[in-house]
């Protein structure tokens, strides 16, 4: 039984970093969208592994190596289970950026004739189209630009409405018989709106296109069942979900992973190697070249367990409640424009906003002086900001350890920004 509600104030005790003062104020950490903080339990799990059972996995017969392999594969099962997948559908990656590049390069390799005969299904021809959206993080945009440039495929974009929701009518036009790949984010890291994954998958499946989901901003906050969502591939980063740096997950439907050519090559992903050629293992090993992030994988499993103990639905409800409170306060402050404030949209707990007359960097600096950590800039989504006619915004993003006090501290401070900088329009 997982709890229905969350006691964030109690959970905070598990996060040593949150206990500190910044610039003479208690730290109010509202930058979890960039990277989350780690609970003791995660640090402890890694520590216990590294001081008790650490060894290179899958390669040795000695006792430590066997124990390490068990820990590593158990971690895979935990993380796979968290997103509704089977262990063999979960590839360890160093993070979401690597994961999307993996998919793009593997498709490029299929295009270059690499992989098994069945890999040819992924090969792109000039004139084939790759579709992404106007609201993507650079990580889910530039790898596709590069793939298009290398293969002669054409990159197209699903536009967004002024309120930040995707233009699904346009999507139905953009996704055509020429479309081979549809890559999109579950939740934009700027807007917080939950996109209609099933509808996009349906449009893609109608034309037989491969779907790639960026689940970075949903995995920590929403109950995920990736097989049920119907996407072919999905990525997420450990460090955004209470876990360590340097680890993340690539989920793939079995038939997709089985036919996708390898990307990184090297040790532990091979069958027979001669000086001139190599055979490759089945997934997930085929995509795990070299020494894997073993300690971080163990830590990520502990993070997932922590989230499961708190209850992912309780987390979502808690964050949604705080986000609603934040919105209510922000819309009352003169000169604040929220990005993606679409009426009735389902959301995760983050808000980005523009402060009229004050550059985001200055606004962020002002908040920081009061111990409030927010992100400022384009948040790796420059085209989206250009779409809104700005170059930068302020983003406050929530995690399970945030409280109403955090939100109120933010609201109080934000109302002081324009007066401080002498903008009193």
């Amino acid at each position, binding site marked *: 039984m997982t709890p229905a509600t969350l006691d964030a104030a109690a959970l905070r005790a598990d996060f040593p970093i949150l206990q500190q003062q910044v610039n003479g104020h208690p730290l109010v950490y509202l930058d979890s969208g960039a990277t989350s903080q780690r609970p003791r339990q995660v640090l402890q799990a890694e520590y216990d592994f590294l001081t008790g059972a650490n060894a290179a996995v899958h390669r040795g*017969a000695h006792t430590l190596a066997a124990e390490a392999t068990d820990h590593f594969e158990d971690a895979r099962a935990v993380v796979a289970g968290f997103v509704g997948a089977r262990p063999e559908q979960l590839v360890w990656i160093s993070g979401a950026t690597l994961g999307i590049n993996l998919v793009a390069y593997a498709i490029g390799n299929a295009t270059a004739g690499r992989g098994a005969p069945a890999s040819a299904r992924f090969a792109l021809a000039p004139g084939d189209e790759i579709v992404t959206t106007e609201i993507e993080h650079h990580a889910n945009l530039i790898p596709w630009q590069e793939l298009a440039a290398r293969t002669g495929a054409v990159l197209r974009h699903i536009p967004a409405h002024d309120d930040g929701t995707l233009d699904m009518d346009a999507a139905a036009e953009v996704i055509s018989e020429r479309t081979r790949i549809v890559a999109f984010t579950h939740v934009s890291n700027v807007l917080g709106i939950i996109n209609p994954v099933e509808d996009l998958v349906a449009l893609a499946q109608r034309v037989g296109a491969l779907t790639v989901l960026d689940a970075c901003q949903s995995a920590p906050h929403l109950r995920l069942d990736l097989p049920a969502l119907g996407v072919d591939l999905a990525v997420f980063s450990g460090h955004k979900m209470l876990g360590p740096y340097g680890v993340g997950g690539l989920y793939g439907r079995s038939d997709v992973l089985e036919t996708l050519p390898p990307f990184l090559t090297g040790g532990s992903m091979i069958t027979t190697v001669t000086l001139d050629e190599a055979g490759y*293992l089945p997934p997930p090993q085929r995509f795990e070249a070299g020494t894997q992030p073993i300690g971080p994988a163990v830590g990520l499993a502990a993070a997932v367990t922590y989230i499961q103990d708190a209850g992912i639905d309780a987390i979502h409800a808690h964050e949604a409640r705080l986000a609603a409170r934040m919105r209510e306060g922000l819309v009352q402050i003169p000169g604040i424009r929220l990005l993606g404030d679409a009426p009735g949209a389902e959301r995760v707990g983050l808000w980005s906003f523009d402060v009229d007359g004050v550059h985001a960097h200055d606004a962020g600096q002002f908040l920081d002086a009061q111990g409030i950590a927010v992100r400022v800039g384009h948040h790796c989504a420059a085209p989206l900001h250009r779409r809104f006619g700005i170059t930068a915004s302020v983003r406050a993003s929530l995690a399970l350890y945030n409280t109403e006090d955090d939100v109120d501290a933010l609201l109080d401070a934000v109302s002081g920004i324009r007066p401080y900088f002498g903008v009193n329009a």
Partner: protein
Amino acid sequence: MNGLDSLYQELILDHSKHPRGSGLGPEEGRTASSHQHNPMCGDDITLRAHVDDSGEHLLDVTWEGSGCSISQASASMLAALVEEDGGETGLARADVDRLIEGFREALRSRGTIPLDEETYADAAALSGVSKFSARVKCAMLAWVALEDALARA
């Protein structure tokens, strides 16, 4: 019996030194082969399953390969089991499937499910392997090869 001796039982070392069914049989009659390789340690086996004309019975198993004593002994014990239990008419496919499934289950049980001697004959001595997770693949190699070969026989 210490841990090591429970892994390397006399019977296992015997089989590995004097393997049964070693040397691939002729491709006469209805046969199918499978090549299996353990990339982690280089164990390698080619196994040939000889079935009757109906394809319903496994007549015999022959193999060649190289690897550690566990993988060699396991292949040898499998060949012996088929020979002894099958007799003239061979083993029914369903029985072979059950044998392989039970073997896999025991080996993955981390020492909780033993292989019974009645059913597995000498191969029951491989029960000890299940406590050494890194060696389970060695013991499974021949059995996986048989499974694969039969699927195509």
